[in-house]
Each structure stands twice: as structure tokens, then as C-alpha cells.
């Protein structure tokens, strides 16, 4: 119905992308200290954890579920990494083990949701506490900071003197994989169907539970990868690493136009949302906007992000209606 060209052009994910570009152009021109390589690399580096988790989270949300335990999973794998490191284990062994741990965390969420049929919101609020708690048990009050420099450099360093963090390239690869999986494979197509109408998806022979389980596991894996990245990037493994990150991810993904009712959204939108928020915060800090005002701006942006398309659609519908009414009846 609201499918006029105008309405299609104002799809929110494209708008977010456009906003991001406008913001970047503006900042290059008018914000002191924004355009230099160091700042950009910090901007990207600090946004990467959110972006990394946003990848699987987008898929999960499209399939109609949510995982709020991601930040805790990240914290847990950081803690385990620190604890094992303190035990004298080799980092090359630790990292795969931690990733495996992330898979297990995701599996627990997934099994609770698919086998017992519990709401994922409730389950992952529970594991949000549980995983963080386990992290606290594992590492206690320690802060492990002496990870090998070559790894820390990889997580925090730049490619030569460019603005691109070394870790950005692997992220681009992961992004490409996620985009292909969501938008070009049967698996991704099924995710949309499952999110929009789970019963119809089941009737179409889609293995709904397996699909969801895989997505939860992928989310756990990526959350743990983020946890490892976090610990190396900030050279600090503590049990409370990445606390509250889930809300940032949710906010960014929502801003990118992903519908938490499931069945709608694009990865491009989600990632644009992530970097829009990241860039905006960077720009505002550089422009001496206080932290409090930044919160307000984030909030307003979220509200506008849903009201905006709605208003645009109404305008376009009204126009289409006027056009239709004015065409002479045959």
C-alpha cells in the first residue's frame, strides 16, 4: 500500500546510512580533531565491540529472538582468558577455548529457549546475571593486564599510519559473511520467515528450533570473540568488562531499523546504526557536549528514528491518495 517510490526511498536503513555519511562529511569539515587518523582509529576501535555483537544480534532479532546476555558472555570469556593466562597457559590455546566457551553460553541460551519454549527475553536476562556472576567467580577482583604485546597491538593498533585499526579488516570479513548469510542464503531467508510467522515457517518445513539454536550459538561465539577483543584492545581482563554493552547494541540495532517483532531489517541498517551512534558520540565529545546532553541526543535520535519513517510514510500515503483521487474516474 505504502509502496510508492518515495516511500521505498525513505526506508529507514537507507536514511541511517545517509545520516552517517552526512555526519562524517560535516565532522571532517567542521569538527577540530575529528579527521585525523588517530581519532578515526579510536572511533572505529571503540565502536568495534558493539559492531561485532550487532552482527549476530541482527540475525537473531530478525528471527524473532533476542539475547541480552551478550555483554556478560563477553565479560565471561575475558575473565576466563585472564584466569587461564594467569595459570600460565599459552594464549594460542586460550583463545580457542574461550571461543568454545562462548559457543557453550550460546548453546545454553538456545536450548533453554528452543527445548523448554521459554521466552528469550527472560532466559537471557537470567543468563545475563549468571554469566557475569560466573565471570566474577572465575577472576574475582583481579585485573589481568599483561597479555602479549603482539596480540594487544593487533587489537589496539592501526595499519601503518592509516586510520584503519588492524582489527577492522577481520571485522569487514565477518560483516561480509553476515550480510551474505542473512540476505543471500536460504538460511537467512528462513530467519525472516521464522521471525515474521513462526508457525507458517514450521509449516513450510523450516526447522525453526534448529535455526534459532544456530543463531544463539553464533551470537555466543561472536560475544566471546568480542570479549577477547575487548580484553586485548583495552589490555585489561576483568570480570566486569563490557558491562551494559547489551543496551548499546540494542539501541544501535534499533536505530538501524531492525524491528524487534522479528522478520524485518537489514544488516546494512544495523551496522550504519552502530557507527552512527559511535561517530555521533565521538563528535559530540570533541565538541565539548557534556555526557548528559549526549544521552539526551541519543534518546531523541532513537525516538526520531521510529517517528521519522512513520511521518514520511503518512505523507507519501496522503500524496498517493490525493493523486488517486484526482485521476478522473473511467
Amino acid at each position, binding site marked *: 500500500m505504502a509502496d510508492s517510490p518515495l516511500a521505498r526511498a525513505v526506508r529507514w536503513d537507507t536514511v541511517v546510512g545517509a545520516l552517517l555519511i552526512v555526519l562524517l562529511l560535516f565532522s571532517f569539515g567542521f569538527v577540530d580533531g575529528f579527521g585525523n587518523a588517530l581519532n578515526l582509529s579510536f572511533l572505529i576501535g571503540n565502536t568495534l565491540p558493539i559492531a561485532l555483537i550487532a552482527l549476530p544480534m541482527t540475525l537473531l532479532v530478525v528471527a524473532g529472538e533476542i539475547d541480552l546476555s551478550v555483554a556478560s558472555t563477553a565479560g565471561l570469556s575475558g575473565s576466563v582468558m585472564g584466569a587461564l593466562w594467569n595459570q600460565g597457559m599459552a594464549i594460542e590455546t586460550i583463545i580457542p577455548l574461550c571461543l568454545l566457551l562462548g559457543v557453550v553460553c550460546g548453546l545454553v541460551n538456545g536450548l533453554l529457549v528452543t527445548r523448554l519454549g521459554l521466552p528469550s527475553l527472560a532466559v537471557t536476562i537470567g543468563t545475563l546475571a549468571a554469566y557475569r556472576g560466573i565471570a566474577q567467580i572465575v577472576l574475582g*577482583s583481579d585485573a589481568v593486564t599483561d597479555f602479549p604485546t603482539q596480540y594487544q597491538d593487533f587489537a589496539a593498533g592501526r595499519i601503518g599510519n592509516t586510520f584503519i585499526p588492524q582489527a577492522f579488516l577481520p571485522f569487514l570479513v565477518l560483516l561480509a559473511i553476515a550480510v551474505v548469510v542473512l540476505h543471500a542464503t536460504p538460511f537467512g531467508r528462513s530467519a525472516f520467515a521464522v521471525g515474521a510467522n513462526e508457525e507458517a515457517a514450521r509449516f513450510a518445513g523450516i526447522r525453526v528450533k534448529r535455526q534459532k539454536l544456530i543463531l544463539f550459538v553464533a551470537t555466543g561465539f561472536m560475544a566471546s570473540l568480542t570479549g577477547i577483543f575487548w580484553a586485548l584492545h583495552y589490555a585489561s581482563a*576483568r570480570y566486569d568488562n563490557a558491562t551494559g554493552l547489551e543496551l548499546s547494541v540494542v539501541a544501535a540495532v534499533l536505530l538501524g531499523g531492525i524491528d524487534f517483532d522479528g522478520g524485518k531489517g537489514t544488516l546494512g541498517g544495523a551496522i550504519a546504526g552502530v557507527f552512527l551512534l559511535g561517530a555521533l558520540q565521538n563528535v559530540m*565529545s570533541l565538541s565539548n557536549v557534556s555526557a548528559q546532553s549526549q544521552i539526551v541526543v541519543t534518546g531523541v535520535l532513537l525516538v526520531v528514528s521510529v517517528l521519522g519513517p512513520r511521518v514520511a510514510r503518512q505523507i507519501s500515503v496522503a500524496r498517493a491518495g490525493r493523486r488517486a483521487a484526482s485521476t478522473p474516474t473511467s
Partner: protein
Amino acid sequence: ATACGGTTKKDVKADSGSNATAGKADPNAATKKGLTVGFLPKQVNNPYFTSSDKGGEKALTELGSKYKEVGPSSATDTSGQVSYVNTLTQQQVDAMAVSAQDPGALCTALKQAMSNKIKVVTYDSDTKPECRNAFVSQASAEDLGRTEVQLLAEQIGYKGEIAILSAAQTATNQNTWIDFMKDELKDPKYKDVKLVKVAYGNDDAQQSFQQTQGLLQEHPNLKGIISPTTVGIKAAAQYLSGSKYKGKVKLTGLGTPNDMRKYVKNGTVDGFELWDPAKLGDLAARTAVALVSGQISGKEGETFKAGDMGTFTIGKDGVINLGKPTVFDAKNIDQFNF
């Protein structure tokens, strides 16, 4: 780079632990004016840090330099704090005074700042020594830990069970103090005093509240609580004052006079202690200016003059101690307002 093909803790050479020092100091160099010093507290809007940073602002105005404050709105938003370090670096301030949420996480960013010729002073909460030029400590950890035990022991007559209500389990300064408390308790004069538990209220009013309840239920014979955190002591005092334990269970620790005035007056709390946060900020500001002016470089043994607070000497690892904390009780509390 090891025999078995993996990189382990042993392969990573322990860092020397010396603070970052640059160049030679000239104690007689002129105090530079027109500098910009950025304050980066753990959390903006936190009353403690606000009064501390206000102290810094006053000192800087006096010295003819500019003050600015940035910071995250949450005390656990480490990545937020890191980006603020970066922001200050981008803005080319002359020095920054940082209260670190995490000893390690800020390091990369702080080193980046120092390599951009920005002097870094930590205050209240330190980072690893090599990531800053100097640390302004609120009071020696040893003093704080020991005096709190002494205060409480006196109040309970050197007899009975006591507990500690701390902030987060990872709070570095809390943990150091608690270690000194435990050490102090080894003194034979405390042979009848028994530390039964350390609880963590995560600097959250409600959690600290419930932890206090739990302590009292689990240990009905509890005689006293030490809470070395302003949030914790306040919550514990509020709980005690509204419960049957009021006046029976003693409470001491670190608190601000304004927070605690009511509880001192209604008999819930006999006495507690704290340093003056404004002085802490003041000293941090003056240290920063002295560093930029080249009067000190952060080496052990250097001295500098900090306005009317007198002369300070830099200790081991670039630590500067503010001095002994003040003890507040019913007699003197009305003289303070912070």
C-alpha cells in the same frame, strides 16, 4: 616465541613498574600560565568527584590556567572513559588529571596522550605506573586502612564481630585498604575483634542496603561494620537508622560530612573519616601544572610547592600522598560542608 609454540605469561617480561618519566626536572622553573588541564573523573555528576574537580578548578584559576572537565556518565563505562582520554588528546590539552576506572584499560590511550606531550596525573584511582607521570593519592592506603580499624575498635570496646561492606570486588583502592585493615587486625590488641565477612554492595544504594541486611541476619552478634566507600556507608547508615540495630551496631568508614550529618546526630554513627576531596583535586591540578612547567618529572624524591597546602615530596612509583584523613564526629561535623 617459546618452546611449545605458544605465548604464555612467562614469556611476557614483567613490566618494570616504574612510572613514565620524561626528561629532567628543574625545581626552580617558572610556573607556566595559560595552560589547559582536563579533568577526567570516573563519573561526572558524582558528588565526590564534583567537589574534587571543583578543587582542581579553583587551583587552576589561581594559577592562571584553564580548567575543563569531561567524563562518562557511568562509573563502569570503561570504554567511555577511554574515548574521553582520546578526546582530551585530540583537543591538545596540556595535562590531564584522570581517576581511572580500570588500572589497565586506559593505558594504551594514556600512553598515546603522553607521546603527544600531554602530562598525565592520576588521582583518587591509579593506573599502572607506566601509564601516567604521577599519582596523587587521597591518603596513604596504609593510613586509611589502619585508622578505620582503630576507629571501629574503639567504638565497640575492642571486642566483638565486625564486617566490611566494600564497593565493587574489583575496586583496586578498596582492596588495598582492606588488606591493610586485615593486617592491622593482626595486632594482639584486637585479639577479641573478629572480622567475619567482607561484603560487596557495588556502590549501589539498594545493593549495599540488602548486603547490610544480610550481614546482620547472618551474624546476629555483629558489633560493627566498616564501609570504606561513601555510597556504602550512607546506605548502611540509612538501613541501621530505620532498624532495631540503630546505635547497637556501630558503623564507620569513609563518608562525607553532608551525607552523614543526620546519622551522626541521630546516634546511628559515632564517627567516620575522609580526606577533603577538594584538596585532592587541588593537589592533582597543581601537580599537573608543576609537571608541565618542568618543576617535577615524576621521579621519586622530587619536591614541589603546592600553594598553601605546603610542599609535597614524590614517593615511590610517582605517588604523592595528600596526607592523613580527617575524622568526623558529633563535635566537629558542623564545621565541614562538602
